[in-house]
């Protein structure tokens, strides 16, 4: 294909505008560098009325919000989910993986749960504790200053708890618990499960004069038009565009990183999705932040004489050690919550309380921990609400089924009486869980696609079994009953399919040894001195903490390193 080459030379080309790419764009452009930011999806601004779904009512959608075109429902703010039209991926037989992609400015930060947890000291050195996996080449102390700066820049609510592996930060005050969360607190305390206020990047208090304060609609998954929650679009990219040093390329799908005859990067090529033609951009440095698997795909597709099996892949480890968070959940029915008085209990978009990992693995039959999340119970109806209108009658020995006003009364009686809880745990990264290029399949742009191979091991399966045992104990101590049946051994105890928790990381892992890792501790490819990866790819291990806060702290650290290297004229 003819490549159209008409762009000026940039200091840095950033690929992807989500958590890592948005962070890098902000820090690098604040330093006055000339940036090309390349995003595969369209422009998105949470405050744009034409794109906004916040505060819409279910009847404003002809399908009442059901999930035909968006997996989590019509009002959810992600363009793309585990399926993207024309952009397939393949899966090796007898294994599974589900790959979420949000094709839009800000990427997945527009819809994420805003759970903003720091990794703790133990999380960077897990191998020292259980001999499994690999240690990070950096420690908590290396990244702490960036977590601190991030807390102050973006805003995260929480409380100082002095728990060793759950480091405190610079917190905004948390919101008061909701009623069903008081039941959870009661049950957790009785069960000996630690419970503390949650830590979410939502502004319960003003942080500057450009972002609004939370007005408690509980819809952060729709992205906040007042910029009161963190999205890379609203907090990084849109403000950075005003600085005049960032050129944004939207609907631009990067194909590969271009290199010169010495193997150094000279820029990227991309498909303009509006016309299907291929273009190129030149830059001194390339920063990949397309998401762990997309960045791996770009590198593997960047073959040249100097890099015959893909750029930065002399270790043959790109795509390897892919891992996602483990997950499973259960619904708990609380008879004391039937016939509730209704009031506005939307709160923030997520839980007000949660349980960090509270046990010592030495006494358990699985490694690594999990945290427990609590869903909201008194929510705005959407398609699916009341579908089994009086199922709970079973519990009271009453008639299930029927029709008429009795049915209507049953729906109202049980509204807000169930609580969903779920576990999110740490998996052990393994070399034989990976993504690679599928030589036989191309997407609609002609770019070779990824093939996944992923299986959980006993470690993860035993961990989710423990989650379910905990859920039942919690249910009992909350004065409730766990609904449905506990998943069995044959069902792998209900563990989520890999990729379903949308925390996939590890495909370009970080290390000091170029034979055992893809990037160094500054997220730079071992093989090439002007290509960096700042998404979840460099994660050596994904703790039972959501990855976003760590992706951004690392990206900030890497961006400062890039500025420093440019100043010293090392690049």
């Amino acid at each position, binding site marked *: 294909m003819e490549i159209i080459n008409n762009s000026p030379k940039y200091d840095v080309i950033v690929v992807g505008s989500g958590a890592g790419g948005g962070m890098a764009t902000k820090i690098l452009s604040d330093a006055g560098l000339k940036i090309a930011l390349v995003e595969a999806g369209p422009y998105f601004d949470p405050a744009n009325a034409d794109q906004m779904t916040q505060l819409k009512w279910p009847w404003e959608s002809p399908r009442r919000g059901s999930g035909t075109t968006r997996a989590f429902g019509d009002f959810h703010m992600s363009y793309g989910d585990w399926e993207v039209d024309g952009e397939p991926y393949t899966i090796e037989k007898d294994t599974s993986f589900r790959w979420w992609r949000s094709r839009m400015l800000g990427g997945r930060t527009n819809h994420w749960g805003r759970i903003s947890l720091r990794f703790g000291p133990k999380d960077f050195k897990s191998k020292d504790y259980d001999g499994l996996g690999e240690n990070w080449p950096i420690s908590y102390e290396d990244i702490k200053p960036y977590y601190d700066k991030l807390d102050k820049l973006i805003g995260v609510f929480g409380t100082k708890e002095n728990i060793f592996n759950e480091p405190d930060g610079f917190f905004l*005050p948390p919101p008061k618990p909701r009623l069903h969360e008081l039941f959870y607190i*009661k049950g957790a305390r009785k069960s000996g499960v630690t419970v503390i206020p949650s830590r979410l990047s939502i502004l319960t208090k003003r942080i*500057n*004069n450009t972002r609004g304060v939370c007005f408690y609609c509980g819809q952060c998954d729709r992205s906040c038009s007042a910029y009161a929650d963190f999205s890379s679009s609203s907090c990084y990219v849109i403000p950075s565009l005003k600085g005049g040093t960032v050129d944004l390329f939207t609907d631009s799908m990067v194909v590969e990183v271009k290199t010169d005859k010495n193997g150094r990067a000279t820029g990227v090529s991309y498909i303009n999705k509006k016309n299907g033609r291929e273009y190129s951009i030149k830059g001194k440095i390339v920063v990949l932040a397309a998401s762990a698997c997309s960045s791996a795909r770009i590198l593997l597709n960047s073959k040249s004489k100097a890099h015959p099996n893909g750029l930065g892949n002399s270790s043959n480890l790109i795509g390897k050690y892919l891992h996602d968070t483990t997950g499973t959940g259960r619904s708990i029915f609380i008879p004391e919550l039937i016939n509730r008085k209704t009031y506005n209990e*939307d709160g923030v978009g997520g839980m007000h309380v949660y349980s960090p990992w509270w046990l010592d693995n030495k006494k358990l039959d699985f490694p690594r921990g999990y945290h427990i999340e609590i869903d909201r119970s008194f929510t705005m109806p959407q398609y699916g609400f009341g579908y089994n209108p009086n199922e709970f009658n079973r519990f009271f020995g009453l008639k299930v089924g029927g029709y008429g006003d009795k049915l209507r009364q049953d729906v*109202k009686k049980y509204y807000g009486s169930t609580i969903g809880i779920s576990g999110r745990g740490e998996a052990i990264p393994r070399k034989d869980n990976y993504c690679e290029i599928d030589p036989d399949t191309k997407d609609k742009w002609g770019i070779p696609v990824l093939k996944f191979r992923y299986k959980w091991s006993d470690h993860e399966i035993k961990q989710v079994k423990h989650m379910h045992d905990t859920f039942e104990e919690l249910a009992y101590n909350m004065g409730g009953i766990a609904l449905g049946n506990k998943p069995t051994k044959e069902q792998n105890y209900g563990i989520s399919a890999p990729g379903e928790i949308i925390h996939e990381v590890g495909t370009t892992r970080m290390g000091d040894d170029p034979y055992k890792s893809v990037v160094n501790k500054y997220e730079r490819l071992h093989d090439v001195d002007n290509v960096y990866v700042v998404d979840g790819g460099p994660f050596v291990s994904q703790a039972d903490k959501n990855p976003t806060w760590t992706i951004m702290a690392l990206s900030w650290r890497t961006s400062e390193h890039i500025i420093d290297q440019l100043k010293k004229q090392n690049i």
Partner: protein
Amino acid sequence: MDRRDTIKNILLGSIGSSVLLESCVSSLDNKVLEKIWEYQYGRTPEEKERDDKFLNSSFFSESELKTIEKIANIVLPPNEFGDINDAGVVEMFEFIAKDWSTPAHNKYGENVLRRALIVFDELCIEKFDSKLLDCSESQIKVLFDEISYEDKSLKDQKESVKLFATYRGMIVTAYFTSEIGIKDLGYKGNTPNVWDGVPDEVLEQYKGIVSYDKEWIDKCVDQSKRGDIAEWDDKGNLIT
């Protein structure tokens, strides 16, 4: 009344009688319908195209739509908040029938939603010698009394019972996701507010079961200072 209801009422002639409106209504074509029947909820151009295609085509016949309406009004009878039409229940059936009629949905509109109407009609003919639409409300209730409960002795329920459960589920979900249904349910959110904890009268009701503890609440946001810009000391203590 929201914009959709206003438009619907204009179309039905129940409000507005100006010459202008009458001339508008008489010259309605699909293009105009497309324009006025416009759901505004942050669609991408591709999603909007898909919605518009379905909003401007018909799946059910007039008599099928009337049958669904009749069933729905018996499953959830009108009350002080309104009826099935006010809740847009039939429109939702019509839309879902097209939205879910892809091979991936196993042609839900045809195989489930239309199939149910055929089965209900057959049962009515068997019992009362006429289609459901021509049966009286009390006749239909005789049928619903039979098919609206599971037979616990059966492992796999009869087709009519399963199809009735599907209709009931969709009617309930359509009703409670409508403007009147949400009023009926009593959901009070989806509006800007300041959350400052569970209301006192509700806490009072749960006294002895659950309560706020002072230590926890003291750490929570003081809503009178939410507008003050956050500042911390070196140790991370909030000082504003």
